[in-house]
């Protein structure tokens, strides 16, 4: 696509960005997310200590200039652990969502385009995966693949692609009978070109919205897997791991568990707010209304 300032796509994009910018809540959320990504990237620079370095003489230290957030039951610096923990929450969740799109999008597209037996089979497979409530199947898969952050991320992608596939399938089903598809076929394009060249660009918005909406759930699920013990393995500092460790000392040192949870809520909430606004801003009916307001 050559760059043309007045092409409908560019105008559309500008309008969308304008609508998002108009929402204070969404802008604050975006800033919060950028802040946490920055922290995650700069964790090695910002952390005063190695997050796994133990100081046996200084366990459960209160906040001080030496340890800004105190130390935990092994004398590890809480601030460094929380900063490093942001890496897992921010980047592993991104990995899961990218994998989810990579698995779910082609399956949904092929399912919707070909229809018939292929569609029936693929949709029954999604039914089977959706029969496992919550993260039970992901828990099982993560454990089978061996504990660790990559197994956990892969397990969540292997169970999470179903919703993405269903959304893409829905869009393809409603698009494939339209005139531009018939026109493409008449000029001799093959199925592959039609599906991925003509129809799929129309799936972009729903896929982006779903991807952003998924981020929050994925962050919570990843932390949950770590909390149970199949995700990030101690002594590595994931927020879920920190909460699980802090739980043992809840009465005396509640902050060990409370703080990572508050950070997680902040991130998840920001993703959800951005997702909501994005959905409205990409909705052709709502967009004009919101821009005019």
């Amino acid at each position: 696509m050559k760059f043309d300032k007045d092409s409908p796509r560019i105008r559309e994009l500008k309008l969308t960005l304008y609508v998002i910018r108009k929402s204070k809540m969404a802008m604050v959320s975006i800033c919060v997310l950028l802040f946490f990504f920055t922290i995650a990237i700069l964790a090695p620079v910002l952390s005063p200590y190695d997050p796994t370095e133990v100081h046996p003489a200084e366990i459960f230290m209160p906040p001080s200039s030496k340890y800004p957030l105190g130390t935990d039951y092994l004398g590890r610096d809480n601030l460094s652990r929380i900063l490093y923990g942001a890496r897992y929450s921010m980047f592993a969740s991104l990995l899961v969502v990218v994998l989810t799109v990579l698995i779910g999008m082609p399956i949904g597209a092929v399912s919707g385009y070909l229809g018939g037996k292929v569609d029936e089979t693929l949709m029954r497979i999604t039914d089977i995966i959706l029969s496992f409530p919550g993260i039970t199947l992901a828990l099982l898969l993560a454990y089978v693949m061996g504990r660790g952050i990559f197994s956990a991320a892969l397990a969540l992608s292997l169970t999470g692609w179903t919703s993405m596939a269903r959304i893409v399938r829905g869009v393809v089903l409603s698009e494939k009978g339209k005139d531009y598809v018939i026109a493409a076929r008449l000029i001799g394009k093959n199925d592959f070109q039609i599906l991925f060249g003509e129809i799929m660009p129309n799936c972009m918005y729903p896929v982006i919205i779903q991807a952003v909406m998924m981020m929050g759930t994925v962050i919570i699920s990843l932390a949950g897997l770590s909390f149970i013990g199949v995700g990030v393995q101690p002594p590595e500092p994931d927020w879920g791991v920190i909460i699980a460790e802090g739980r043992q000392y809840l009465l005396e040192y509640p902050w060990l568990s409370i703080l990572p949870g508050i950070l997680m809520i902040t991130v998840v909430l920001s993703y959800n707010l951005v997702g909501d606004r994005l959905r409205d801003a990409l909705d052709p009916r709502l967009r004009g209304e919101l821009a005019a307001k």
Partner: protein
Amino acid sequence: MGLLYYILKRIFFGILVIFGVLTLTFLITKIIPQNPVAVWLGLEGMQYPELVKQVTELWKLDRPIWEQYIYYVGNVLRGDFGRSSWSRGPVIADLAARFPATVELSIFAFLIAMSIAIPTGILSAVYRDKPIDHFSRILSVVGISGPSFWWGIIFLYIFYLQLGFAGSGRIGEGMSPPITVTGFYLIDSLIEGRLDKFIDVLSHIFLPALTLGIGATGFTSRLTRSALLEVLRKDYIKTARMKGLRERVVIYRHALRNALIAPVTYMGLLFGSMLGGSVFVETVFTWRGMGQYIVTAIFASDYPALLATTLVIAIIYSVANIIVDLLYTVIDPRVRVG
């Protein structure tokens, strides 16, 4: 096409999906990096080739894979989920003891969630954009954004450690569990005729149930609000108002009935979220149910127990979904068209 046709079709597809679930767990048993015979016999037992051969033949592990599959499905249908490699007892016995605990907790969580969510949803819609609407919005959005295991820990800290409410477990330490009739402590304690036990059990179930229901509460509250607002815009509501009916009657008698269809549709989904969430909540509150069993199985590397519990939870969820769908088909004739 008649109603019966749709019901049979739904049941047929439900059973098909359950078989799919069975197949998936079977495939997982085939890919796990663990030799079940070795786990069962231990290092010492593995030194006797006779014994190894005997167990392998007994479990049909020397047969072709499709025969193993039939054997597996047959076992599951007979309620034989294998033996726990940790406790050595049949998994089904452990599950039978833990099944009522999880179901009791889920049902109670569901009741709490609904009794909070539906009134707040209605209030939010009726007093739209007033302080109470904002308050309930913030509460549900923040509730949904936090992990349930974290909320459980927060509740334990505030209510148990600080305020001295009942903490973890299903019943107080000084009390013996009620006689087992249904396995539901709330019902069993009443059958036993011990009101003090009933109250103790009630106080123990409250916090975990509240925690387990947080997601469902936030979700349902939002859903009720938007559904009620949608219905209140309809023409028949205008008619009811024009007739001079009081606002109370318009909202509660006319609008609410239709508005509640949406939350009811999600009942199956919400129940599933509770079965899944029980893994975390039961761990935090040491609630001896299926969720906690999964976690202990993970720590003990107890594959048979882990697989069986996951399978049972998936089957319960599928059956619950079929029931909700069937109820829905009976209640709302429009569904049958789809």
